[in-house]
């Protein structure tokens, strides 16, 4: 067995993520965190996370930005806002998770082939292009980009949807998607 150091030296820490988050109105509030753990306690998905929400905040503040931006945690957040309404320090944790998701997507640090970030990206592309989302096509694209073999495991669900007449493969779109794209592109510029 190879012996490796598991604890970082202080000199190796990098607080740039904290600095970047602090520039955002929602991100700056993590300085208030008292590490009580209420967020992790109420989070319905924390049992699957590599770092609980409380720990994630501690990691950001102490300089473990790389671990944070490559974590599964941020992608397991389902945006249920339980932490946000329960936090005694009124930290908008869900919004911070969103900010971290945006950074991880932009910097491509998210866990590879993990379906949640791929879903976000494909959903974004479809809505940007057509103005609307076609559920069945989105699922097919997701499977093609993550694990094509899993397509078969979705067949019974597809059959159920067909039996209850809820499955449609017709592409949904708005009348002039190009006008919306123009607006969204211009927004992207001013948002920078």
């Amino acid at each position: 067995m190879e012996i490796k150091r598991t604890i970082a030296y202080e000199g190796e820490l990098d607080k740039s993520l904290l600095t970047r988050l602090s520039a955002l109105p929602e991100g700056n509030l993590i300085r208030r965190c008292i590490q009580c753990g209420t967020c992790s306690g109420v989070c319905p998905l924390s049992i699957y996370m590599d770092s609980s929400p409380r720990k994630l905040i501690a990691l950001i503040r102490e300089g473990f930005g790389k671990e944070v931006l490559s974590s599964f945690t941020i992608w397991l957040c389902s945006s249920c806002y339980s932490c946000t309404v329960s936090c005694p320090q009124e930290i908008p944790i869900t919004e911070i998770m969103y900010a971290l998701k945006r950074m991880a997507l932009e910097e491509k640090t998210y866990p590879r082939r993990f379906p949640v970030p791929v879903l976000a990206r494909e959903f974004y592309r479809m809505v940007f292009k057509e103005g609307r989302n076609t559920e069945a096509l989105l699922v097919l694209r997701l499977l093609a980009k993550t694990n094509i073999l899993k397509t078969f495991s979705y067949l019974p669900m597809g059959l159920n949807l067909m039996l209850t007449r809820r499955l449609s493969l017709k592409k949904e779109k708005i009348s002039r998607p190009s006008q919306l794209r123009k607006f969204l592109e211009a927004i992207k510029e001013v948002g920078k």
Partner: protein
Amino acid sequence: MNLAYYPGCSLKGTGKAYEKSTLAVFSALGLELQEIPDWNCCGATAYMAVDALASKALSFRNLVLAQKMEAKWVVAPCSACYLNLFKARKEYLDNKPTREKLCRTLKKTGWEYECSGLPEVLHPLHVLTELVGLEKIREKIRRPLKGLRVVPYYGCQLVRPYDGYDDPVHPVKMDLLLEVTGAEVISDYPLKTRCCGASVAGVLEEPGLNLNGALIKEAKRRGGELIATVCPLCQFNLETYQRKTENAGRMPILYFTQVLGLALGLEGKALGMEHLLYRPRLEV
């Protein structure tokens, strides 16, 4: 009432029973819902994860379209759509730099819009309990659902993070509405606002089974025979994940508008009952 209707993508797809039953119930109560012409997707939770300002812009466009219809309210049945529209309007009103960015960019890309007010965003539950009122609905009940044990399930985004109409963890508005139908409402269901996993459950099976399994199990333990939902994603997750749980004993997952519609004496077909995987025992 000047009600613009924002269906969103789910109500045209897997949630079509929600659209049918909402339109049927509103019409039975004498309310007209006018669909926003050429509405675009709200971006759900995905767009926010990619571009924050653009996700506001998507909802802003929908609100502007509704404003052009001279609507006073926009009604959005899907919880994610509701929250996105609500958030965009709030940001537009509270945050001057964002407002200016949105307005200026919209005009620059060829839209005619005076940056005035935007219609208020409501969920159908709010329209029924706040604008119509329970007393008026009570008068229209034709077929009391006596003995039907209904579990009210609110999920997340209708009540959180904004709780203008209800409590974010222990809401009661749907309970009160369902009581009017004559059904027995299991109000002490403790998981009313515990998340179904939303789109995370949609792509990851283990959390999906676990979260939805717990919701169903507790609903049964409390004696419920069906769950009433306010969101197409909750309905979908709760319904489809039962297929894979052992020892299932299927539980019908209805939209609250379907339950109300039954009590108003509407026909199953008008309420989109044929789109349910598991049908309730009470149907016209």
